[in-house]
């Protein structure tokens, strides 16, 4: 089951890579991630939320020790 669990995470990463590649190949079909971020992050609530999640990643992995 461990392999299946890890494969699930890898699949998500793969899907993101496919989206990035597809948007570079055909930006009129799927907008590039940078364009999407420009639209989404123009709103303060979205900007605050997404940057909070980003900051929390640092907090989670660099500051808080793993739970026993």
């Amino acid at each position, binding site marked *: 089951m461990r392999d299946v669990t890890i494969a699930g995470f890898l699949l998500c990463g793969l899907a993101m890579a496919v*989206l990035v590649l597809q948007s570079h190949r055909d930006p009129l079909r799927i907008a590039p991630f940078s364009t999407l971020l420009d*639209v989404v*992050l*123009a709103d303060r609530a979205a900007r*605050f939320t997404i*940057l909070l999640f980003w900051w929390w990643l640092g*907090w989670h992995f660099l*500051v*808080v020790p793993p739970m026993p």
Partner: protein
Amino acid sequence: MSDESRPVSARSGPVATRIAIVTRLAWLLVLVLTAVFHFLRGAPVDAWIFLGGAVVIALDGLGWLRIPLRAMPDRETLSRRIVAYTLIGVAAVTFAFAPLYGGVDTAIVIGIGVLLLPVVWADRPRASGAGDTGATDEGATDAATTGVGAKAAVRRAAIAWSAVIVAGCAWEIAVFFLGRSSPTAENDFPALSDLVDPAVAWPPARAALVVLWLAGGYALIRRGRR
């Protein structure tokens, strides 16, 4: 309503205002649900971080937080890039050599958060030529999505990315609960943190992760203002 949500209603009528309110409520819900999950997984500090964020968003949406900050136009210069990448390098080296989960790490991460607060909060400047009354962030949005085809492409990208991110979060949550079902289940269902933590313990990998993290943050704070 806050300063940022006004221009939408002024330019596009009540429908756009409703969309802005629903969007804001959706971000609020994301923060509250994340806080609830952290309470459930026994991480109250993390939960309070997200709950605090939700309170700030709610207060701003109600117009009770009036902090008049306006971001400068993003002029990407070589010197600014050199300064940013130098700081990222210094931070990576510091994290690599500092004791793991020590006071230095805590001070740097909290310091970055505090320093970025006004940057994140500040209204984004409008796209050039948009006049000087009212419009703020959404001017840049319009510039980025001019044309029906471009708007449709952005909508499709938003749906696709949301689907992948929601699927990833659902997988992580499912793994978390399955991993708690028995003492041996934790090995069968490792959370993403369990997979990444061993790398964090190795200084070179920790430095690389810090570079990735900070470069990602640098990219994020420069978005939304063009």
